[in-house]
């Protein structure tokens, strides 16, 4: 049901649906009250929070547990932080937000605001209402955070809400990570609140961008140590990007190997190899679809064959 619901809400691809607007081209004034202008304050009123908590506990978490089976690591690394934080994660699937929400301890889970792309999640009334309710989402621009959106985010931090932000600005087109936008670091520096890096592994394989169905499987969420904004914005942004890459390394190997590589400065980049597109996709290994077809053990490369 969850899958069906999300699939129905998923925007139809261009040309069936509306086209994306290139970042370089200035948009004409927003029409009416949708997009970045959509007001989401209603979604943080007490009755709605209660309804959302019930929805998260009764619908989202059981479904996520059934579909993505998340394993969680590193919650202890930030539990001592007083006050609100900004969670910053890699982004490869629409499953990321529900997975992160469902693994956060109660203290953060029910006090979490997700920053979501205005052009995608807030372009129709129905979607705007649903995502405001289910994810407590607020609309932001994809490529640069406008004053209006950043003021809103700061205001929410000041009110004690935690934020969830995806600095890559959108889901990965090919399964590999993308360069970060500076929005998360900028927000952290402006508000003085720490960033909590976290890495989600596996969601991109279960429901990649453009896929029509969701596969079931295992995912892993790893939280890192908070990154405090005690340096210029660019440095904070770089530290965040490195921290997430180190968490990815930790998830795929082990903490000690990851630490050694981090100390040596040889943590593998999340951006993937600089090579032809087929090699980038090859390096990711078979997709769940391939695996289902070939019935090979999960995550194992089918080519070259074992000697």
């Amino acid at each position, binding site marked *: 049901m969850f899958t069906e619901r999300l699939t129905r809400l998923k925007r139809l691809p*261009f*040309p*069936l649906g509306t*086209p*994306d*607007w*290139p*970042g*370089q*081209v200035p948009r004409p004034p927003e029409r009416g009250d949708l997009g970045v202008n959509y007001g989401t304050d209603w979604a943080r009123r007490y009755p709605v929070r209660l309804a959302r908590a019930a929805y998260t506990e009764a619908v989202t978490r059981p479904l996520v547990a059934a579909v993505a089976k998340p394993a969680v690591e590193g919650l202890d690394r930030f539990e001592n932080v007083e006050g609100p934080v900004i969670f910053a994660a890699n982004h490869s699937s629409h499953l990321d937000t529900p997975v992160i929400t469902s693994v956060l301890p109660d203290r953060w889970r029910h006090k979490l605001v997700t920053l979501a792309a205005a*052009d995608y999640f807030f372009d129709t009334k129905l979607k705007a209402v649903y995502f405001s309710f289910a994810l407590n989402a607020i609309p932001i621009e*994809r*490529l640069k955070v406008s004053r209006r959106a950043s003021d809103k985010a700061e205001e929410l931090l000041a009110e004690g809400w935690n934020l969830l932000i995806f600095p890559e*600005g*959108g889901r990965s*087109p090919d399964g590999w990570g*993308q360069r970060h936008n500076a929005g998360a670091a900028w927000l952290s520096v402006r508000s003085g609140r720490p960033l909590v890096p976290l890495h989600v592994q596996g969601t991109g394989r279960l429901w990649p961008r453009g896929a029509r169905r969701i596969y079931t499987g295992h995912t892993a969420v790893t939280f890192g140590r908070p990154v405090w904004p005690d340096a210029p914005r660019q440095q904070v942004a770089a530290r965040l990007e490195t921290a997430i890459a180190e968490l990815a390394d930790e998830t795929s190997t082990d903490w000690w190997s990851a630490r050694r590589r981090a100390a040596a400065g040889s943590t593998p980049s999340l951006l993937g190899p*600089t*090579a*032809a*597109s*087929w090699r980038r996709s090859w390096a990711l290994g078979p997709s769940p679809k391939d695996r289902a077809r070939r019935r090979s053990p999960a995550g194992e490369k089918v080519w070259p064959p074992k000697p």
Partner: protein
Amino acid sequence: MPRPGFVLEVDRSTPPVLMWHGEGYRLERLPADRSRVVYAPEPLAPLADPDEAIRRALLEPLGDSAPLPELLFAGMRLTIAFDDLSLPLPPMRRPDNRQRVIEAVLDLAAAAGVDDVVLIAALGLHRRMTDAELRHALGDRIFDAFSPSGRLRQHDAEGPEGLTYIGKTDHGEDVEVSRRVAESDLLVYVNINLVAMDGGHKSTSTGLMSYKSVRHHHNVRTLQHSRSLMDRPHSELHSSAWRIGRLLGQHVKVFQIETTLNNDAFPSNMAFLQKREWEWGVRDRASYLASSQGLSLLSPTARRNIFHSIKAPHQMTSVQAGEVEAVHTRTIANLHRQQVVDVEGQSDVVVFGLPHVGPYNVNSIMNPLLVMCMSLGYWFNMYIGKPLIRPGGVIIVSHPTPWAFHPVHHPSYIDFFEEVLSATTDPLEIEKTYEERFATDDWYRHLYRTSYAYHGVHPLYMWYWGAHALEYAGATIIVGGNRRAVRRMGFRPASTLADALEMAEDHVGRDPSVTYFHCPPVMLANVH
């Protein structure tokens, strides 16, 4: 206020872009963060009263020329030559610019009592126009008044009885022109300037001369040294045409009338074809889906018939008349106002989506040679300054490139493709070994003169047209083309644009920069 052209840097939020693919189109996604799309300026506002503008142009000519009424007198021999069906593209809705201008000229001629008036379609070595095509270009009034009496003619570059040898230019170029033109008291040339290559002395020195003259500017040397064909001061082809035209001007008084069009190339139900993709509304998306799905169900012939029935809502944006060179200078300025797009720097790869029609396949088939000529000859040369790609860059062309030829229109193309290209694709070698044979073949000559066939030498000219690009580019890849036909021309076939971009990396290295030239509508890249 129409917006100027612009260059879009492709990022992840850029929607797929429309790419022509012969008698159809596709939406293609370009690699983010290293691609750009060059969009044409929006159509300029047309002249509010074109007939009045024409009248004023005839009465107030440019350069060293008297007003047209003063050049007309009873008893004179007046010849009115006009551009053939290769212009404009797609053919424009009635009334065509030629009809408006020639009617205005004939009104003045009638008032001056001129009896001996002949109209000549300046075909050069192109095929003759059918009656329906002439009627469309000139309108019913002119066609019905001149055609039955034989006063509406088509230039014949082969009949010795219809040609007059005028002499040689100081560069030794022969000037042999239509006898009727040579013996006229006044030649009025009526032009439509769709691209910057057209017009000026090229109109007469190509359209009204014989093979003996045309070969001096249509050859591999001039074309390899035309940088570009669309930039006359840097075009060797035009330098030669200018010399020939000036010599003609010493023998015949020429009154040139040139018009420009806006780039409103498609009717309103196909408006999405010239809109920027992110501005497509519901209607545009529905038109795209319905037309592309519908077309995919049809046979190639049915698709071709549909596309060739398109009449463009082009409208006149300027008209100028008088002395050839003064007129042409003003025309080019007006044309640039509509077509020039500033582009910063060159890229490694350029992508062209070829539409259904080019200058030589109006109401006909775009055969593989015309695909080569359109992409490497025309689209590649749509620049001022520098080409869109760096030397050694890769040209990617999207077109089905069928192994198909119109047997009436393009007979010599078939032999050229089968016989010559299977032996060599080197333009110089082709020129040296085959040109004379194709140009003087009696059967081709007969078909050119009496049927509706392009001249025997025309397929060689198509090949020469791309000579500069062949020399300049590292490789040409054709997406979605007939593999045998593509290989025959020495190009590389690819199934998809993504494959072609990967193949291009063999020549220009990893992650090349890509420019997609979003044409048509026609534009001219001013590459800095």
